[in-house]
């Protein structure tokens, strides 16, 4: 009797924490919608809603790799890139075939997730044997490869179907009325703008369900055991490769979903250092680390704050990235310095003790 009560209590505790996380997302959504309807939200903020969803999903997804699986990935934007391009290609070529934007976008999301997952497996199988910094560098390399390769891909469509080349648009040898969809470095233009805040929030919630439920399941424990002690995990019969690959692939697929939102939010899609290069991968890592490695809720909050910050600093003009850098450094030290952490803990502890006494 007493035993089962204890078990329930424990489940309740994780459940409670999860509910808070979902609650924050839903509450934020409702508040924003109310404000938008009341006309209280600026164009800038409205424009930022979808990017915020994109980076929140990226942060959660990378946290699965970095925080839960315990492997450093510096190429996460590469998966986003795969998701963005594959889905944009799909949407553009299906513009006529599937006129219903909702259905088309639904399939685009699946396509983006699928191809990103595929990339995750292709990279993961050979690469997950490596450890630590070596894995980091290989994922970085992979991200750069994807970016580099995508910017030499030319895909066109005419009556006889899709044409493909890595040389230039002329080499596609299309019929006269054919259209170039992916034009090398010039990328894709004219992707339908299907991403909305509502869809973004739904996708965040789905991402959260997947990641949080995974963590608190049998497979999640296996993944975390690999993180905590590889040798011990093997010794109790856990198939390390399988679980590493599983986490990595899920993480890649979610990044792919973020990519779909990305490509369907802007009408010009190119693969540059800025959006899909290592700079972006590192930016997402910043969300994860600043918010707390393995702390899903924290990384979501960090993603939102750091996506907003440079926009809020716009008034500083040429100084804004300088100030941004300083704020980033200060926040990192504030959040991570062991001395400050101790100090904060003791301060709160004291406060609480005093409150209790009162």
């Amino acid at each position, binding site marked *: 009797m007493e035993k089962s009560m204890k078990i329930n209590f424990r489940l309740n505790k994780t459940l409670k924490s999860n509910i808070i996380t979902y609650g924050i997302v839903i509450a934020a959504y409702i508040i924003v919608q109310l404000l938008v309807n009341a006309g209280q939200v600026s164009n800038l903020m409205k424009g930022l809603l979808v990017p915020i969803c994109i980076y929140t999903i990226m942060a959660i997804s990378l946290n699965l790799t970095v925080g839960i699986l315990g492997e450093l990935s510096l190429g996460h934007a590469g998966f986003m890139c795969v998701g963005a391009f594959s889905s944009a290609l799909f949407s553009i070529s299906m513009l006529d075939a599937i006129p219903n934007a909702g259905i088309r976008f639904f399939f685009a999301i699946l396509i983006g997730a699928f191809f990103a997952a595929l990339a995750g497996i292709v990279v993961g199988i050979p690469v997950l044997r490596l450890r630590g910094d070596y894995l980091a560098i290989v994922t970085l390399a992979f991200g750069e490869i994807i970016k580099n390769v995508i910017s030499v891909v030319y895909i066109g469509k005419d009556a006889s179907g899709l044409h493909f080349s890595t040389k230039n648009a002329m080499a596609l040898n299309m019929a006269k009325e054919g259209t170039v969809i992916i034009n090398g470095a010039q990328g894709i233009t004219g992707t339908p703008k299907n991403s909305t805040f509502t869809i973004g929030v739904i996708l965040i919630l789905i991402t959260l369900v997947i990641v949080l439920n995974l963590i608190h399941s049998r497979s999640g424990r296996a993944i975390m055991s690999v993180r905590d002690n590889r040798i011990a995990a093997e010794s109790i019969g856990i198939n390390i490769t399988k679980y590493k690959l599983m986490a990595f692939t899920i993480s890649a697929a979610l990044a792919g979903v973020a990519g779909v939102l990305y490509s369907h939010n802007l009408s010009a899609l190119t693969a540059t250092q800025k959006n899909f290069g290592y700079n972006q991968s590192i930016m997402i890592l910043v969300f994860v680390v600043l918010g707390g490695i393995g702390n899903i809720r924290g990384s979501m909050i960090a993603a939102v704050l750091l996506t907003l910050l440079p926009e809020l600093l716009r008034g500083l003009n040429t100084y804004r990235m300088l100030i941004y850098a300083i704020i980033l450094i200060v926040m990192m030290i504030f959040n991570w310095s062991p001395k400050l*952490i*101790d100090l904060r*803990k*003791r301060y709160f*502890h004291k406060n609480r003790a005093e409150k209790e006494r009162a």
Partner: protein
Amino acid sequence: MALLEVKDLEVYYGVIKALKNISFEVNEGEIVALIGANGAGKTTTLHTITGLLKSASGTIQFDGHDITKIRGDKIVGMGMAHVPEGRRVFAALSVYENLKLGAYTRRDKNEIDETLQMIYKRFPRLLERKNQPAGTLSGGEQQMLAMGRALMSHPKVIVLDEPSMGLSPIYVNEIFDIIQEVNKSGTTVLLVEQNAKKALSIANRAYVLETGAIALSGDAHELMNNDSVKKAYLSE
């Protein structure tokens, strides 16, 4: 005056108070044992003395200096050596390089070499494995290396955290002999041990630590006959 004097020491891990007002002293030439159950705070005490941890309040005097706020490496330079819990050998470095690092604070090449030979004599296995990366040594071999490395600094005080852990019976005896020998040659010893019986048998004085506070103290032989000590730590 005592060589090492700890007064009203308080140490926290975050909000957890691990040491509560601990005071004790170690006189020159003594062997002092610190015993206590798992988690009593023995390791914490030693870490604070050698500067790996910072105390929240209290003072530590060593050799006439207040070392409470002094950087750990300087404390070592003043003549304090520490054999840490968990051995902490430099895994990628060879046995020889580990030993050389033990003598980091010393300059005289000839003297260092002398000590090295002395250690090789006491731990022949280390000489045998001179060039093996320390990380691949067996548990007991690493324990010997940790001990040898600390002795390389020719310290005034040596602080030992469970030096017999993982050693075979024959080596446990050996290590206690070595401790006594080192002590005879002029080094003061502060010893933390689970093997309380052995520890008390070679110590002059002892302190019993319970949940972060000193519960008992006194002459080692008297403590060995103390009923509560017998019951709690000697399993008799």
